Structure formats: C-alpha cells, structure tokens
C-alpha cells in the first residue's frame, strides 16, 4: 500500500529529525513508558499501528458481530447505561430504606450486597457469623427477610442484580417467591445473579462446595432460567474481583473469559443447546486507572468473546455472541488518604466504562477505603454518572474512541495477550484445572506484589499516598453498622424457626437432600424449601452435607 509506505517514510523522518533534535535538549520523563499492566507504550501511534486495517472484520458495526463497537445497535442514543449502585448493610429494613433512597435519586436498577454469612451460606446465628452480620452487606436468612428487603419496590418495574455466588440458586428462589407474592410471575423478572463460583476460587473467597457440585448448581440455574425466566441473566462472569486481587488488564480479561468458557462447556455437557442459554450470560469488569488501556480492554473483551462463541462453540444466533457487561470503578484504586480525591478517580474510571460501552455501572463512593459509604457519598457517586450521561455528550455518538490509532492498537494487544493466556489454560485442561493447580491465583499474586513494589518504590505514583501527601486529621463521617442489629437478627430468626410449619419445612428439606444426591434440577426443590421458610443456612447446610466443602490449594 503506497499510503502506508509514505506514512512509514514520513514517520521515520519525524523520529530521526524533529524528535531526536528535541530529545537532546528536552529528554522525556521516562526512558520507557508502559501501561499500568506493563504493555509498552510508544511515543506516537499512526495508521501503521492500528487494527483499523480490516475495518469490517475487526470492528464492524454496533449490534453486529464481532460487537467491538458495542452490543446494542444505537447504544446510549437509545438509552443510557443502567445506573446501579451496589448497596446493602445491616438488616433488610435498613437496606430497603437505602434502596428506596437510591431509586428516588434517579438510580435505574438495584444491586444487592449481602453480608458475608449469607454469601457463604450461614445463618446469622452460626458461630462463624459472629461479628459479621450486616457488615459488608445485608443479612438475609429467609424469605421473610427478602420480603422486607423489597417492600414497596415493584419487581416488575426494576431490575435487580444480586452479588451472590455459592448460594445464588437460593437467593434467586427467594426473589422468585417474593415476586410471586407481589403478583409478578417469574417470566417478567429482570435482573442478574452473579452465580460465578470460579472467580470465587480464584480471587474473591466466598466459595462453599467443590467445583463439580458448584458447576452442577450453576448449570441447573442456566437450564431453569432458559425455560422459565427469559429476561434473567443467569450469571455475571466476573473479572472485577480478579482485577481487585491485583491482576493486569490482560489477566482480568483472559481469566474471566476462560471461566466463561468453562461454564459454557459445563452447560453444553449437561445437554443444553448453546443458543438456548448463551444470550443470558453476562459479564462484569473493573474499570482501573489506566484510561486508554481500560477502554481498549472493554472493546477487546467483546470482540474476543464473540469469536469464542462463534468459533469454539459454533453459536448460530448472534445474540449468543454478544458480551453484555456491568462495570464497577476499581475499589483498589481508592485511597484512604485525602479521600475526596477519590471522587475524581471515580469520575475518570466511570468515563472509561462509558467510552468502553458498558451496559450498567456502579461508581464507588469516596469513603470506601475507610468504611461503608455514607448516604451523602453514595449520592455524589450516583451524580457522577448522571453528569457523565446528561452533561458531557459522550453518549450521543456510538463508540467515539474508535479509530484512535493508540486505542485500536491497544485493543489488539490486550486481545492478543488474553488469547495467549487462554491457550495456556486450554493446555492445562481448562479453567477448573488451572484453578485447582493454583495457576490463576499465582499469576494474580505475582502481579499484585509487583504492583505494590512499584508503588513503594514510587515508580507508580498514587496521589496523596506516595506523592503530594499531607498530614491529615482524619475526621470523616463513617457509616457505622449498629452492632445490636446482629442480636435483633438472631432473635427474628429464632422466632421464624418456631413459627413456621415444621412438617412442611421438614418435607421440603428431605426432598432437597434426595434431589441433591441425585441428578435432577435442584431449582424447583430450592424454591419449595424457601417457600417453606427454610433458611439460607439450612439449605446450604444440606448441600454441604451431601457435597462436602471446597479446600483451597496452598499457593504460598
């Protein structure tokens, strides 16, 4: 191509002439530049670098394969992303109040944070729950709590995302049952269960059962929802926690997609047709601090997943190839020092997510390196999204960053690096084998340690932490979870156990145990159990007895 030849020649002239002359007088800040993930960054990108060479194949059009430019045809011109703040603390009543506050403030979807006992399948009165009840999320023991949680919130109008994994099927069953009481049938329900156990083993830690049984529970939900809940996202395959644990952008992308491949394989093996469930898979990424690298990552993620679905799994329906994802700004980039600065970090990271074409977004609150966020901090975080949506105009045209020589080149590079990892994981026997061998965990840990050393050596600047520091009087308005809530919750639970129909409960629990020992779909049994007022701890307890518990490999 003569155009390229000309550009190549001119570029060389520029480097050897203008640039080298300048460098002798004004050297650059660093001998070499790289992204936060360690990808080399050149001085200048030109048409010679970009992946735009084959526009149709690598970029295409929004709403069409390979979806690099977005999964929806009109993107934010049609509708803005869903503004969905992850929240929950204390009892169901308090969280219900926070939900209603957020909806009044213009939030467009709900996102439930559960406390740790709920997340690992213990009731509030379990010995391991001591001190943890209602701390990092809301305590939900039974359908009675769930009813309070969604009191006066019409479940046919809002969509609800639930960050729940090992007991995801149980909380979904409770949601279905509560909606039914509101008069809303399950085929009308919109929302997501995270349901992504593999990243729990890798990075987040709230696993219960060993992989085989966990995967069965997940494919059971896929199957159940594919038949009865056409609008429900059956999983949110998450890179966010992998990134928070310290991975690079390419590792986040690779490990998430490798886990995604494992879920699809499991479902296909269980007899599901790819196109019957794949369109309800959703994803979740972090938005870290390297501006362009993150935008590139989101775009690369869509393209890579589309290719995997079409080439590896032979999906026929383009819907199966669309990667829809949620984004959260990176909690690990928030600083406890000068916490108001976090508002600026969150703004930039939120903008990246929007420029990357996210379907929904959580913006962190400035005080989250210190405690749970106050109402005021959450409001600022939500307003940040509203300002980006309504004031900046970034949503008025689709994928506005496309065609940037740098971003296109970085999109290609991130995809290439992720593919390399996925190949390696394939050779190891897939994601589950790689996790059991501790491969992903070790890679992440190495990156995390490397990053911390760079921050400590001030090779990576964190404003207010290792540069521009100041002596601070930490006067901050913390959100405090009332420690008496734990006692209150335990009393309520005891009352529920006394009040419920014991015969009905016992029969539901017995059936569940038998079902778990066999191979039938567990969802109907779990729904019957929650309707009989069985608790999260009781249901997960039965499954613990039948399936045993996961033991993490020692990777230190």
């Amino acid at each position, binding site marked *: 191509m003569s155009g390229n030849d000309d550009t190549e020649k001119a570029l060389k002239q520029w480097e050897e002439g203008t640039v080298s002359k300048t460098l002798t007088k004004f050297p650059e800040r660093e001998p070499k530049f790289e992204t936060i993930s360690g990808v080399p960054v050149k001085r200048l990108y030109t048409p010679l670098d970009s992946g735009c060479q084959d526009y149709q194949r690598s970029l295409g059009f929004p709403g069409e394969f390979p979806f690099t430019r977005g999964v929806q045809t009109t993107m934010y011109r049609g509708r803005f992303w869903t503004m969905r703040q992850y929240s929950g603390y204390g009892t169901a009543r308090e969280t219900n109040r926070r939900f209603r506050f957020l909806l009044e403030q213009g939030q467009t979807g709900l996102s439930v944070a559960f406390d*740790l*006992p709920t*997340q*690992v399948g*213990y009731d509030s009165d379990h*010995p*391991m*729950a*001591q*001190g*943890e009840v209602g*701390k*990092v999320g809301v305590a939900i023991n039974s359908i009675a709590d769930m009813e309070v949680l969604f009191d006066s919130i019409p479940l046919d109008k809002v969509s609800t995302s639930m960050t729940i994994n090992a007991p995801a099927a149980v909380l979904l069953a409770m949601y279905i049952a509560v909606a039914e009481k509101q008069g809303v049938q399950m085929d009308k329900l919109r929302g997501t269960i995270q349901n992504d156990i593999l990243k*729990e083993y890798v990075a*987040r*830690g*709230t696993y219960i059962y060993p992989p085989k049984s966990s995967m069965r529970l997940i494919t059971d939900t896929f199957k159940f929802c594919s038949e009865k809940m056409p609008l429900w996202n059956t999983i949110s395959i998450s890179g966010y926690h992998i990134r*928070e*644990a*310290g991975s690079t952008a390419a590792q986040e992308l690779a490990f998430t997609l490798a886990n995604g491949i494992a879920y699809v394989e499991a479902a296909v093996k269980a007899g599901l047709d790819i196109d019957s469930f794949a369109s309800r898979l959703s994803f979740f990424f972090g938005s870290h601090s390297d501006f362009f690298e993150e935008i590139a990552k989101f775009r690369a993620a869509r393209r890579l997943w589309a290719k995997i679905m079409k080439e590896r799994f032979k999906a026929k329906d383009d819907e199966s190839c669309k990667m829809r994802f949620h984004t959260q700004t990176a909690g*690990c980039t928030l*600083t*406890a*020092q000068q916490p108001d600065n976090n508002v600026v970090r969150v703004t930039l990271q939120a903008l990246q997510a929007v420029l990357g074409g996210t379907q929904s977004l959580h913006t962190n609150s400035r005080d989250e*390196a*210190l*405690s*749970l966020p106050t109402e005021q901090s959450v409001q600022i975080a939500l307003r940040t999204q509203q300002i980006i949506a309504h004031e900046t105009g970034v949503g008025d045209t689709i994928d506005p960053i496309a065609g940037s020589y740098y971003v296109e080149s970085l999109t290609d590079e991130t995809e290439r690096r992720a593919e390399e990892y996925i190949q390696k994981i394939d050779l190891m026997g897939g994601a589950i084998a790689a996790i059991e061998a501790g491969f992903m965990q070790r890679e992440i*840990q190495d990156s*995390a*340690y490397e990053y*911390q*050393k760079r921050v*400590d050596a001030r090779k990576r600047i*964190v404003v207010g*932490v*290792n540069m521009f520091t100041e002596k601070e009087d*930490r006067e*901050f308005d*913390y959100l405090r*979870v009332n*420690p008496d809530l734990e006692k209150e919750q335990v009393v309520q639970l005891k009352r529920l156990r006394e009040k419920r129909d014991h015969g009905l409960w016992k029969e539901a629990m017995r059936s569940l145990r038998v079902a778990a020992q066999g191979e039938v779909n567990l969802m109907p049994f779990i729904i019957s159990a929650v309707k009989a007022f069985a608790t999260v701890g009781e249901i997960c307890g039965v499954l613990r007895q039948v399936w045993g518990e996961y033991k*993490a490999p*020692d990777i*230190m």
Partner: protein
Amino acid sequence: MSSPKRIRVLVAKPGLDGHDRGAKVVARALRDAGMEVVYTGLRQTPEMIVEAAIQESVHVIGLSILSGAHNALLPRVTELLHKEGADDILVIAGGIIPEDDVPGLKKHGIAEVFGPGTRLSEIVDYIKAHVKL
C-alpha cells in the same frame, strides 16, 4: 549482622472475609525480608489462629481484615493468646479498620494497625523493632 534466629510470622485471615490480596502481598514482603512466614488461608476463627500460632512457634501474628468484624474478632485473638500464656507474641493488624477503632484494639493488645497505603517496608521495620525473639 542478621540475628541467628529467624523471625517467624503467622499471617492470618480471621472471619469470613475473602479479601486476601493484602495478606498475601505482606506475606511475600516479609518472606523477602528474611522472615519465615506461614499463611493460614481464609476463614479462620480466633481459636484456629491461636492454635496455629502456638503450633508453628511464631513470634508475630499479622491479622488482615477488611470485613468490619475486627472489633469482634481481633480482641478474641489476644484474649486467647493470653489464656495460653503466649502474650509475648507480637500481634499486628491491617486492612480496613476505621481510625476510631484503633485505640480500642490497642487496648486489647493489638500492637499496631496498618491501614491502606502503608509501605511494605514500614511493616517489616516495625516487626524488626518490636518482635521478641
């Protein structure tokens, strides 16, 4: 001159908290600083932590917690150490622990609390200066 006796540290995750990035990074830094480090893994009760500390004859316990359950779990560790006559073990903590809670924890025998943004070398230096070998 290095001490003939190596400092032995137990890095532990009390409670149900799954955030172990900090614990693992600190464990590696202590190891690179020449200490012997045992990491408990997740979901440890105070009882399990104290038992491991005594079994491994450690000089230091580092407790990492981001779940907000520190006031319930950390004093329990020092209490149990006291019961076992192992008060000489240096107990330090890190994670998301609000400043207001630090004096209370110190009163219960947590020697120091390291918050977000702490340099790894600060922790290494602190241990070297305060450990009883």
